[in-house]
């Protein structure tokens, strides 16, 4: 009624009327979306057991790769901690005089990728060994100090990568005074190799499980479509667009995905808290700082995002395949 009045008032008001009208159309569109969002949840709510079962399947399928991802992250964190402390030991020939060692240390300090060089003289090495090994008396029986002088070489943060360290090792080994150069990093490299394999495995597993989720959601939506074919026909007959008909099914897929992802979140959180204590105890026994990480924000966001995306995609595929087939006749 009010709109009619403005219409009558003057032609100038027409623009206003049109924008007001189109704005109310947009509002109605958004309201409709919201309504479908809520009502599709309501429909799922009315069959709680069936909904929970579908959501659980999705949840478990999502929880598996997520849990493994968290585990890998924890291991990786541990190994990056070690990579930071990578060092190279240069065992020097025993006949190199003190002076040349000092100048060699100075020279190495000037090299690229070297942050620090520490000199451990033969005497220092002996004292250290005596203190730590408990073989003091055995050493006393020796005529001379069997230990070589050592230069400890610490790389800069950028150079602390396997490849760069390997290059540095090659250069150092060519030095005259150096008897043996050793990189204490082999096993770190192996570990990071294992982690790479693990990551690839989680990715592949995740891909397979994503496919399974698509099938589960797709099949569930297909059954919903079939059970509501009469409704689809009637709404098509009174002028519903395909988008309108598709919408509730897409939102249903959205809810399945979201519920599955939240369930997966819960599952992983529970598993981590159950595993946390024993893992900490074990790592304490190994004198390790290893501990299971929690679900960080990024992982949770990825979990929720992929759950929703898979739910939407699964229902999209089902709707695309089965909606065309349902036409009034």
């Amino acid at each position, binding site marked *: 009624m009010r709109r009619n009045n403005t219409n009558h008032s003057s032609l100038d008001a027409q623009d206003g009327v049109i924008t007001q009208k189109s704005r109310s159309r947009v509002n109605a569109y958004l*309201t*409709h979306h919201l309504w479908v969002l809520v009502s599709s949840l309501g429909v799922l709510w009315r069959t709680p057991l069936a909904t929970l079962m579908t959501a659980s399947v999705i949840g478990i399928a999502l929880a598996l790769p997520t849990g493994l991802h968290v585990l890998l992250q924890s291991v990786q964190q541990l190994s990056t901690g070690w990579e930071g402390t990578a060092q190279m030991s240069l065992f020097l020939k025993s006949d190199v005089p003190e002076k040349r060692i000092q100048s060699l240390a100075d020279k190495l300090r000037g090299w690229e990728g070297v942050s620090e060089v520490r000199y451990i003289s033969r005497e220092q090495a002996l004292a250290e060994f005596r203190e730590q090994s408990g073989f003091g008396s055995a050493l006393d029986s020796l005529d001379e100090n069997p230990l070589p002088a050592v230069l400890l070489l610490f790389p800069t943060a950028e150079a602390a990568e396997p490849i760069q360290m390997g290059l540095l090792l090659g250069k150092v080994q060519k030095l005259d005074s150096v008897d043996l150069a050793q990189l204490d990093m082999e096993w770190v490299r192996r570990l990071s190799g294992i982690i790479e394999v693990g990551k690839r495995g989680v990715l592949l597993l995740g891909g397979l499980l994503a496919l399974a989720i698509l099938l589960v959601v797709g099949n569930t939506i297909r059954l919903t479509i079939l059970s509501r074919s009469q409704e689809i026909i009637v*709404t*098509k007959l009174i002028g519903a667009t*395909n988008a309108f008909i598709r919408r509730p099914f897409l939102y249903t897929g959205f809810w399945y995905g979201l519920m599955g992802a939240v369930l997966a979140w819960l599952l992983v959180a529970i598993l981590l808290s159950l595993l946390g204590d024993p893992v900490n105890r074990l790592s304490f026994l190994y004198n390790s700082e290893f501990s299971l990480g929690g679900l960080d924000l990024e992982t949770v966001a990825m979990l929720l995002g992929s759950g929703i995306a898979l739910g939407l995609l699964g229902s999209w595929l089902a709707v695309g395949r089965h909606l065309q087939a349902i*036409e009034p*006749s």
Partner: protein
Amino acid sequence: MIKFDNVNKRYPSGHEALSGVSFHLEPGEMAFLTGHSGAGKSSLLKLIACIERASRGNVIIDGQNLTRLKSRHIPALRRKIGVVFQSHNLLYDRTVFDNVALPLIIAGYHQSEVGRRVRAALDKVGLLGKERLMPITLSGGEQQRVGIARAVVNRPPLLLADEPTGNLDPELSREIMGLFEQFNQVGVSVLIATHDHDLISRLDYRLLTLKQGKLEQGGRTSEMQILRAKT
């Protein structure tokens, strides 16, 4: 409003449902479509709502040629046509209000507008107090009136009805026909397919008679008794 120009409809099975059908229903006109079952009434209505496409000839609705209509434009066409079905085709998991509101929600009307129009439509068919009920609790005649309210709530320029009184007793049938006449009086074009000769012979509207897919020479419903008496 409806223009058929030498229309043929042949189904993939080979059955020719309509052949050489031509007629023109003017805007604001009301007409009845009769014929034995299998004569092609349903096929003709399906062509109008673009549920089926003509095999040959042109079907023009409100200036739009359906032969060349792209399928994405079909929803817009159907919103201009209110359809009343013999089997009501109501959604039984929703209230009367929600059933009648459906065309408006599809067309994207605002909430307040929806409520106003639904109540107006229900008032017109005499069901204003029953908007919160489920359709299954209503009688057959009431369900049919819900169907009519849904067909007219969007104020379409054209109203189609397929055996709208098929399952109703004579008195209810007369009421329903009265409703269609009321809509026609406010300018809606109406085409009703029916085989209820007794009912429509009391009225005076244009008559389209189909016989084995062909349209017979026209007449008026009021002349039906005379015509039948002659044969």
